[in-house]
């Protein structure tokens, strides 16, 4: 199964440890985009060490003062149109955490 989860808070939901998928995506939205752009003690957010594809919503990055250049190289920045394409073309199921 191709599963994508929405992470909308700047914490790491424990349920991520229990999710398995053939293709696993983590879509960072709202305050979840801090994972993409903020380092902790000089290190990227631990959520980015997971075996997943990462996406961050550009509008939510910009509204928090981040530019694409602030985003970790593992994370693909997408807009709402790109998110629609992800939903219809890349993943089968979605969870809002």
């Amino acid at each position, binding site marked *: 199964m191709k599963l994508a989860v929405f992470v909308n808070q700047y914490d790491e939901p424990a349920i991520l440890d229990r999710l398995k998928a053939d293709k696993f995506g983590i879509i960072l939205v*709202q305050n979840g985009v801090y994972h993409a752009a903020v380092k902790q003690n000089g290190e990227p957010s631990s959520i980015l060490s997971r075996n997943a594809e990462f996406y961050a919503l550009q509008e939510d990055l910009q509204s928090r003062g981040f530019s694409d250049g602030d985003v970790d190289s593992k994370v693909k920045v997408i*807009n709402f149109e790109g*998110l629609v394409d992800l939903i219809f073309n890349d993943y089968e199921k979605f969870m809002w955490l």
Partner: protein
Amino acid sequence: MGKLTIGCFSSLVGSMTLDFAVKLAEAAVKKGHEVDLWLSSNGTMLGKKGQSKFRDYSYLAGTVEELLKTGKFRITNCEACAKARGIDKGDTMEGFGIHSMDWYLASAFDADKVIHIGGE
């Protein structure tokens, strides 16, 4: 083209998830998809007639009105949630549905993709 059903169990003013849901719906409709949006709890206030557009306030009613004109967008309030907040059909903007949760379930079963957004 496909059909996307979004369930949003959130609030109105100050809610990031309702804002997200409407913007996602707008982008999907622009790409030619159909969208059903189900609103629960305080999200039902989005359908209230006569909302005002203030600076620094999220104003989603205007976007909803434009989306309804496309014919590719349906938006429906949870009947019980609306009534609990004193919102009846007469208080609701034209084109906005009010149904029991059966509507959401039927829409979700009929959709190509479903995103269920929890409350805040």
